[in-house]
């Protein structure tokens, strides 16, 4: 495992742990999701730079586009949740329990 691979892997794992163990707010989960996407962006840019392959030069940009769409969707859901549940605390999402 090269240092670059280790770097983005650990960044991804930290973001994933943050997403899995977030405790209070919705927005912190969305931030961790963005952190995941950022680590993947760095990984794809490193791929292009290290192997000098112009074939894959568009991959980071397309990832950025999809990540922006996902972030927009997440924020829209944050607003929708605040409108219907009156808060963005995750403990309030308890309407659908058994």
């Amino acid at each position, binding site marked *: *495992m*090269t240092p*670059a*691979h280790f770097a*983005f*892997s650990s960044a*991804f794992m930290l973001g*994933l742990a943050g*997403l*899995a163990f977030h405790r209070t707010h*919705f927005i912190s*989960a969305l931030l961790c*999701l963005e952190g*995941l*996407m950022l*680590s*993947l962006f760095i*990984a*794809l840019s490193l*791929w292009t730079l290290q192997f000098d392959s112009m074939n894959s030069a568009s*991959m980071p940009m*397309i*990832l950025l586009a*999809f990540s922006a*769409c*996902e972030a927009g*969707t*997440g924020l829209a*859901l944050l607003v*929708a*949740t605040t*409108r*219907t*549940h009156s808060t963005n605390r995750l403990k309030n*999402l308890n*309407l*659908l*329990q*058994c």
Partner: protein
Amino acid sequence: MAPPIYSALIISLGLGTTMTFASTHWYLAWMGIEINTLAIIPLMSQNHTPRATEATTKYFFAQATASATLLFASISNAFLTGEWDILQTPNTLTSSLITLALAMKIGLAPLHSWMPEVMQGLSLLIGLILSTWQKLAPLYLIYQIQPTNSNIFITLGLLSIIVGGWGGFNQVQLRKILAYSSIAHLGWMILILSFSPPLALLTILIYLMMTFSLFSSFMLTRTTHINSLATTWAKIPILTISTPLVLLSLGGLPPLTGFMPKWLILQELTKQDLAPIATLAALSSLFSLYFYLRLSYAMTLTMPPNNPAGTLPWRLNTRHNTTMMSLTTTSTICLLPVTPAIMALLPF
């Protein structure tokens, strides 16, 4: 929802799955899956009720995490082996991580916890799209990985069959029952995937047919609870005959179609010297059969406490388009004798 937006979303749903089906590069496959997720989110929350919004939020988090993990595993695989081709994914740690990410996408145990709550918050039509169309793209990718090490698939499969049965035990909400039934059936599918991929294909096709039929029956009478199932005799009496047969087919009883995949899977597992696993799978699917039987009982074998003849409902003139429902219900009940023909058609 405005027709242009609605059609754009439906077309995007089709585009996403088609992109994943047409791709040999992991990146394009990931893009198709992301398009699918993004397209169904507005459809899920279109009526802006609190339950729908909460279901959409939980679905979004589960799917976004799984997509990111899928892309991370593909990039790691590329860094380690230099290959982006889907069919060339060798049997390493990254291949297992890809499998786990795709398992979270389709809701296999132990990554299934989002599934019942999400299904509960959605309308029956969107729940149907979630159970059938949204599973196609990840399943196609899992089908193409074609591993030689079967441990992770057997673990996912057995856990899903047990959790799908046990979780649905105490449920009275029909959408949660359908979610647990989906978990159990996908467990059967992934159990056999590493031994005989054509059988997994057969299992998923028959499951899609059966669940379409069941969802359509519930959509006709607009029932979401066992209590309202019990009034089906007054609304559409033929459903009290066909739906229990569909439910028993989902439970895997001969001579109905649902027995076919279970039978062939048990036979294949026995051929691979895995008889204890086959026994455990067969016994665990008895849990699912319990709640299917309870639904059939509530629908067909219960009598209302009041005078039935004196309580005719309003027979409003509604237009039910039952073409697809009748096709899938007939296939769900009558296809078992055609098993040799189906087996000859699949590439064994």
